[in-house]
C-alpha cells in the first residue's frame, strides 16, 4: 500500500507538470483554432535555455522563468507575424489543418536546432536542492516536484483570473467565441490573436524550466506534445480550468498503470485513455462541445 501511495503521489506531481505543458496549447487552440503541435518542442527549447542560463550565468532555474517566459513571448510574436498571421482569414477547419502543417515543420526544425547547439546527449540542471525530498508520513516528495505543483497551481489560477477579471482577458474569450461579433464590439481581433498566440508561447517557458530539472534531450518534444494533447482531450479543447484537472488525472492514471503493470507501459495508459475519451466523451470531461 505504501508503495502504491509513493507511486501515486509521483504520478500527481508529474500530472501537475502535464497540466502546465498543455496550458499554452489549450489557450492558442481555444482562441484561434491553431493547433500548435510543436508545443512540446518549444518546451524542450525552453529547457535548454534554462540549462544554458544555469550553466553559464548560474541563475537558479526557478528564477529563469522571468527570463525564459518573456523570451518565448517574443519568439511567439515573431513566428505569428511571419508564419501564422496569414492563416487568420481561413475557415475553422482550414486553420486547424494549415496550422498543423506549419507546426509539424517546427517540430522538425526545433529538435534539430537543439541537436546542433547542445548535441543529443541527456542534460539536466543539477541545483543544490536536486534530489532533496520532503518526507510526508513515509511518502517521499521531491522538492522539485512540489515546486512544479505550486507553479502549476499559481500559473493556472493567474491565467484564469486574467481571462475572467480584465478587459483584455475578456476580449480574448470573446474572440475565442465569435471573431465577427468581437469585431463589432470594437475589439481588434488581429491584435488579440497576436497577443494570445505569444502568451501561448510564453506559457511553454514555465514547464520548460521544470523539464530542465530532470534528464532531458531534444527527443522529448513529441512526448511532451503527446501529453499535452491527451490533457487537452481530457480537459475539453480550450478549457483552461480543466487543464490542471486533466493533467492530474493523466498523472494518476499513469501511476496506477505503472503500479499494476509496470513502468515500461506508462505511456500506453495515457494513450488508451486518449482513445477511450475520444470514443465515449469527445467533448472532454469538463468541456462543452468540442
Amino acid at each position, binding site marked *: 500500500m505504501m508503495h502504491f501511495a509513493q507511486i501515486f503521489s509521483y504520478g500527481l506531481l508529474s500530472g501537475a507538470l502535464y497540466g502546465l505543458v498543455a496550458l499554452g496549447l489549450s489557450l492558442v487552440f481555444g482562441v484561434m483554432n491553431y493547433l500548435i503541435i510543436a508545443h512540446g518542442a518549444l518546451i524542450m527549447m525552453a529547457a535548454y535555455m534554462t540549462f544554458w542560463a544555469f550553466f553559464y550565468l548560474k541563475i537558479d532555474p526557478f528564477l529563469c522563468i522571468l527570463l525564459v517566459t518573456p523570451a518565448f513571448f517574443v519568439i511567439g510574436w515573431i513566428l505569428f507575424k511571419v508564419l501564422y498571421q496569414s492563416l487568420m482569414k481561413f475557415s475553422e477547419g482550414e486553420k486547424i489543418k494549415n496550422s498543423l502543417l506549419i507546426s509539424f515543420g517546427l517540430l522538425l526544425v526545433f529538435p534539430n536546432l537543439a541537436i546542433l547547439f547542445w548535441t543529443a546527449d541527456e542534460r539536466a540542471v543539477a541545483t543544490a536542492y536536486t534530489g532533496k525530498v520532503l518526507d510526508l508520513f513515509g511518502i517521499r516528495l521531491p522538492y522539485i516536484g512540489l515546486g512544479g505543483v505550486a507553479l502549476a497551481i499559481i500559473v493556472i489560477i493567474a491565467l484564469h483570473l486574467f481571462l475572467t477579471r480584465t478587459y483584455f482577458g475578456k476580449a480574448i474569450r470573446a474572440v475565442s467565441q465569435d471573431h465577427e461579433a468581437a469585431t*463589432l464590439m*470594437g475589439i481588434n481581433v488581429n491584435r488579440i490573436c497576436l497577443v494570445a498566440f505569444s502568451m501561448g508561447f510564453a506559457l511553454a517557458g514555465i514547464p520548460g524550466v521544470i523539464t530542465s530539472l530532470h534528464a532531458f534531450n531534444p527527443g522529448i518534444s513529441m512526448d511532451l506534445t503527446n501529453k499535452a494533447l491527451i490533457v487537452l482531450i481530457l480537459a475539453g479543447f480550450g478549457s483552461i480550468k480543466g487543464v490542471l484537472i486533466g493533467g492530474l488525472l493523466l498523472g494518476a492514471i499513469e501511476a496506477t498503470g505503472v503500479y499494476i503493470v509496470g513502468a515500461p507501459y506508462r505511456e500506453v495508459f495515457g494513450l488508451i485513455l486518449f482513445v477511450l475519451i475520444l470514443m465515449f466523451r469527445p467533448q472532454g470531461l469538463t468541456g462543452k462541445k468540442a
Partner: protein
Amino acid sequence: MLEIENVDICYGDVQALWDVSLTVKGEEIVALVGSNGAGKTTVLKTITGLLKPRKGSVSIYGVLSDTVPAHKIVELGVSLVPEGRRLFRDMTVLENLEIGGYIGRARNGKDENLRWVFEVFPVLEKRLRQLAGTLSGGEQQMLAIARGLMSEPKMLLVDELSLGLAPLIVKNIYKTLKEINASRKVTILVVEQNVRLALEIGERAYILENGRISGEGRGIDLLNSEQVKKAYLAMG
C-alpha cells in the same frame, strides 16, 4: 448621420447590391425592409465595415467607413445588433455587457450605462451571473440590444430582431426601442423581414428588392401603397 451613396457590393464574383443609396438622419427611426435574400444584412455588413464596397461610399458621421478598420466603426458611434444575436454564449450576461462597452469612452461610463440598460431591460439584472447561452430567446435578444447600447452609440442598427421570437415579445422589444429612441435620442435603423411590423415602427422606410432599393417613403405611406400590399402583405 449615415449616408450610403450608390453602393455596389460583391461576394467574390457574385454581386449582392446594386447602386444602393440610403440616408439615416439624426434621431429618427428608419426601417429597411425586404424579403429573405434581398441583401438587407449585406447593407448592414457594409455599414459596419465587414464588407468593402466595390463602388460608391458609406459615410458615418462624416467619416468614410472604408478608411477605418472594421473594429473602429463602433467608435464612430454606430452599434450593430447582429442577426441571430451573436452573443458570447459562454460568458455571463454581465461579461457580455462589459464587452459591449469595450471601447475606451464606454469604459468610463460603465456603471451608469449598466444602470441604464437594467432600467430598460429589468430582466437582465436578475440574470446577471447567468451564461448568455442559457437565456430564453427573448432575453437573448434583449441582451444583444443592451450589449449594443453599452458602447454609448448615437445610432443603433438592429438586424432581424423578430427572428425566432413570439410576436408578443417582438412587439414589446420594438416598443422598448421606440422609448430608447425618444428618451436617449438614439437614432435607430431596423432591418426586418416582417414588413408590416417594420413599416409601422419606421418613420421612414426603404424597400430592398434583389439588391436594389425599389421604394422609399414614410412608413405609413408605404404600408398603404399598392406595391407593398401586393408583394409583402398578401393583400389585393
